[in-house]
């Protein structure tokens, strides 16, 4: 692959003088808000950070399909069913963009999927919570996609070109999902008392996990400082979390729903809403694998992958045979190397 070869040529050079020049050029480009492209020299740690972040993002998209797909077969109207199916399909599409963007750094999709399946790479912890009622589909759209957008809009200006460009497209679709989730909750909020209760219950369960999506507080965030210097990240976790809370409070009022935080109130002096303490013990437990659905999500992902192996192998065998076949008459079984 030309891209990987070019990187190797730059990245593994023993000539420290040259490396120093490359590094200065890289730093200058980042400082000048220029985009780093796949063929450009970049520090190994920058590459590793991007692969880790993009992989985690891609994994979150495909694991995130599960809690919502859980309601496709039970969607209560055909209109809602079409919206939900399209949304889950968009997430698969986002996974594709992001795995492709990660490939520009020389890491294949198979390699990243292996790391997901073996637990060596993570996905967003939010998807380790269950979708218990139809209203959860709305709460995920409004809160989880809302938090994701708050996190992701600044990534459209990320220093790495392919990631930034993928994020532009993803953010457009995510903001559509966020509005659809809001509109779903609005219909429930204005519906029967049972529907209203269903919506309130979902918001109660999803609010705090959504706030945790911004990651640990700034003083405990392991990767933040370096990522800010590299302009992979543009705002701190706490800044983004505050921005999200400020957006959600008036929206909750319009929905006729409350947010489950007795400490939530406007602070005139700060010009922001104050909110109560986040239970970081829960966050850490879910991150460690002890959330309600960690096991279930990963098991389903592994099972889909394993049960699909014969399909992928058959397609690969077909492709191999039909690009190399000259006699035009071989039957399944004749090219032993491609047999499952």
């Amino acid at each position, binding site marked *: 692959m030309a891209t990987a070869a070019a990187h190797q040529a730059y990245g593994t050079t023993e000539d420290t003088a040259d490396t120093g020049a490359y590094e200065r050029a890289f730093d200058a480009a980042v400082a000048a808000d220029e985009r780093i492209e796949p063929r450009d020299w970049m520090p190994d740690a920058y590459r590793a950070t991007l692969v880790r972040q993009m992989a985690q993002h891609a994994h979150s998209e*495909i694991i995130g*399909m*599960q809690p919502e*797909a859980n309601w*496709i*077969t*039970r*969607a*209560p*109207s*055909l*209109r*809602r*069913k*079409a919206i939900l*199916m*399209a949304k*889950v*399909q968009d997430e*698969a*599409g986002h*996974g*594709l963009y992001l*795995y492709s963007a990660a490939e520009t750094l020389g890491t294949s*999709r198979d390699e990243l999927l292996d790391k997901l399946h073996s637990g060596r790479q993570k996905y967003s912890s939010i998807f380790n919570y269950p979708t218990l009622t*139809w209203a959860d589909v709305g709460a995920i759209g409004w809160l989880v996609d809302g938090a994701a957008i708050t996190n992701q809009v600044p990534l459209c200006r990320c220093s790495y070109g392919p990631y930034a460009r993928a994020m532009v497209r993803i953010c457009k679709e995510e903001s559509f999902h966020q509005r659809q989730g809001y509109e*779903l909750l609005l*219909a*429930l909020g204005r*519906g*029967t008392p*049972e*529907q209203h209760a269903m919506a309130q219950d979902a918001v109660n369960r999803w609010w705090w996990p959504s706030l945790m999506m911004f990651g640990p507080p700034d003083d405990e965030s392991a990767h933040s400082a370096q990522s800010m210097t590299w302009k992979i990240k543009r705002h701190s976790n706490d800044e983004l979390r505050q921005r999200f809370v400020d957006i959600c409070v008036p929206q909750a009022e319009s929905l006729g729903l409350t947010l489950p935080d007795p400490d939530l109130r406007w602070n005139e002096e700060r010009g922001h809403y104050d909110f109560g303490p986040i239970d970081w013990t829960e966050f850490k437990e879910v991150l460690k694998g002890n959330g309600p659905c960690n096991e279930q999500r990963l098991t*389903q992902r592994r*099972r*889909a*992958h394993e*049960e*699909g*192996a*014969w*399909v*992928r*192998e*058959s*397609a*690969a*065998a*077909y*492709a191999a*045979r039909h690009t190399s076949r000259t006699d035009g008459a071989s*039957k*399944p*079984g004749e090219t032993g190397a*491609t*047999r*499952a």
Partner: protein
Amino acid sequence: MTTTVSATAALALGDDALVLSHRLGEWAGHAPVLEEEVALANIALDLLGQARVLLSTAGDEDELAYLREERAFRNLQLVEQPNGDFAHTIARQLYFSTYQHLLYAGLAATDGPFADLAAKAVKEVAYHRDHAEQWTLRLGDGTETGHERMQRACTALWRFTGEMFQPVDGLDVDLAGMETAWLESVRAVLHRATLTVPEGPRTGAWSAGAGRQGVHTESFGRMLAEMQHLHRSHPGASW
């Protein structure tokens, strides 16, 4: 056109699209490769779009989808068959999308009540048919496992294919001509995929082939129970 006759046909075609869309929706999060998550959802969405148009010509789409009993559905038994493995899903797609493509092409050429819908849908369905054919080749003419699974699936679903060519009130198409074209096309694809064309009967004993009369297979009731449960739990609510 007489409304009652075209409502019967609209229900038959609408239920086919609704039920197959639902089955394909069950794949979400379970597909063998990410590209197929996108493709299967895309086909499901096309079918759901067709179903909504067709059911709306026969009444209220949600009342028809969510409040009818199993015996009132008019879809082919083929489309309600459980997904099975990926080969079964592809065999079902091959049989159905070949039929639907021929049917919509025929309807688009008439000046009947379905001409507009058919002219639009035939373009989508051409893609569904191509998708099914391409996978039939890859599974049939890929690995030994792929070949065996695809053969088993084509054979298992064969007996549900005769029903597609039973007359439906209000559907003004040349069914005999369609059946010949269908057989020719499916045989050619199976041949290219190194698969054997199944030989058994294309309609079963008393029940197979009766979906158009509201007689379905056992798994269909469970599918409807899941699909209708939430809607029925909140009578009169809007969503």
